[in-house]
């Protein structure tokens, strides 16, 4: 196979477009799942740190179980359970069963898995905040919500950013698992191309290259963030 064969396959036959579309979808579900995971993670972290005892037990159960079971298995379970529950709810309301939107399903499933991990990262970061800062805020008479939005969240970010950047990279790679339930992201696009042209090695290598570029660029961006935060961090903490 020569270079011209490869460029012919990728560009003249338009497969590179399919892959780019898949990559955009992969980025979309990863971003959505990251945002959802952050929200869940924040709730879980607050539940673990401030919640009543039964809530702490629930949160511990969630983070432990979801980190011990393979992501592929969780994705299968959540996907089937989610669609079944939705259809049960629709049946209860007397509506016909619906086809689940693949994008939303992927975001929700990956976000729930991601929440378990980001919950631990955020909890660790909140615990790392120097207690004097929170006490000072309380001394100014801030309410709990204000304390959270003005002190705890901004101050925890520098401690959390390294862990969160790792989680983002893991998430981009885990998003490939969504292909087993049939949503057409990057890996599914590559599989279509490979199956149609019978050039399996070429197209799977191309898919890997796309993922590699995504992870390289995002780790560069995160490193920039991190060094930006570092300027404001006290050196001796």
């Amino acid at each position: 196979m020569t270079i011209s064969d490869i460029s012919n396959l990728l560009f003249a036959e338009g497969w590179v477009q399919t892959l780019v579309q898949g990559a955009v979808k992969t980025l979309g579900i990863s971003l959505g799942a990251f945002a959802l995971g952050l929200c869940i993670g924040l709730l879980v972290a607050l539940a673990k740190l401030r919640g009543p005892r039964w809530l702490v037990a629930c949160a511990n159960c969630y983070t432990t179980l979801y980190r011990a079971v393979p992501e592929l298995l969780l994705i299968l379970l959540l996907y089937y359970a989610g669609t079944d529950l939705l259809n049960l709810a629709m049946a209860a309301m007397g509506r016909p069963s619906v086809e689940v939107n693949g994008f939303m399903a992927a975001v929700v499933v990956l976000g729930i898995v991601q929440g378990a991990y980001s919950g631990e990262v955020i909890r660790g970061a909140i615990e790392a905040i120097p207690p004097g800062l929170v006490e000072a805020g309380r001394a100014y008479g801030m309410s709990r919500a204000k304390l959270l939005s003005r002190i705890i969240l901004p101050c925890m970010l520098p401690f959390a950013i390294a862990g969160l950047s790792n989680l983002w990279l893991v998430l981009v790679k885990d998003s490939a698992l969504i292909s087993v339930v049939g949503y057409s992201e990057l890996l599914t696009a590559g599989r279509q191309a490979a199956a149609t042209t019978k050039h399996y090695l070429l197209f799977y290598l191309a898919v890997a290259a796309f993922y590699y570029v995504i992870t390289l660029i995002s780790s560069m961006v995160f490193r920039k963030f991190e060094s930006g935060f570092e300027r404001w961090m006290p050196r001796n903490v």
Partner: protein
Amino acid sequence: MDLSWLNNFSTELLRGAGLTVQLLLISAGFGFVLAIAVALGRLSNNVVLANASRCFSSVIRGTPLLVQIYILYYGVGSVLAGFPLIRGGVLWPYLREGFWYVALALTLSVGAYVGEVLRSGLRAVPKGELEAARAYGMRRGQILRRVWLPRALQMVRPTLAGESVMLLKSTALASTVAVTDLLGAANIVRSQTLRVYEPLLLVAITYIVLALIIEKSFKAMGTTSQRRVQ
């Protein structure tokens, strides 16, 4: 919850669990050797060696494991099938199995991920201990075997426990290339009995138990002292 199917499929599930454990042990064993090589390569003064191992771990850690498995199984597999010599050869029955491709992919990823962990451990060993070993007249291999590696492993033991659980979870990807590991067996039950939740939940519990066993056995190896060595 109806578990009446369990009798008919218990052999499949047990065999699947066996395959999962086999995958885990094979890739952990070979991967660990590779990880030591990668870690030493990254710390080496030889520019070519250092850059080669850095590229290796960057590429392996920057692409999804599932894609790597597909590249090896479908990509390399289809290329290998094109050679009549290999197709007719003695090794073909093994080369056709998904198992060995998954084992190779897992070994490579253990090499890359654990290699990075070991590198940080090796760098954290106090210089004085290595100098003391050299002062006793140990050769480089002896220093590595007797002092450097054991001290580094002691320091990164908690991280290694986490990596082992990650590896256990990664073995589930074998089911995507028609290997009947634990999850693959559950998928067989799923397709034959049309039950979705029971087999998946049962297998999930098995994975949790395996993960607990891994964590307990790492704990049994003793505690890492948190005392800082001056």
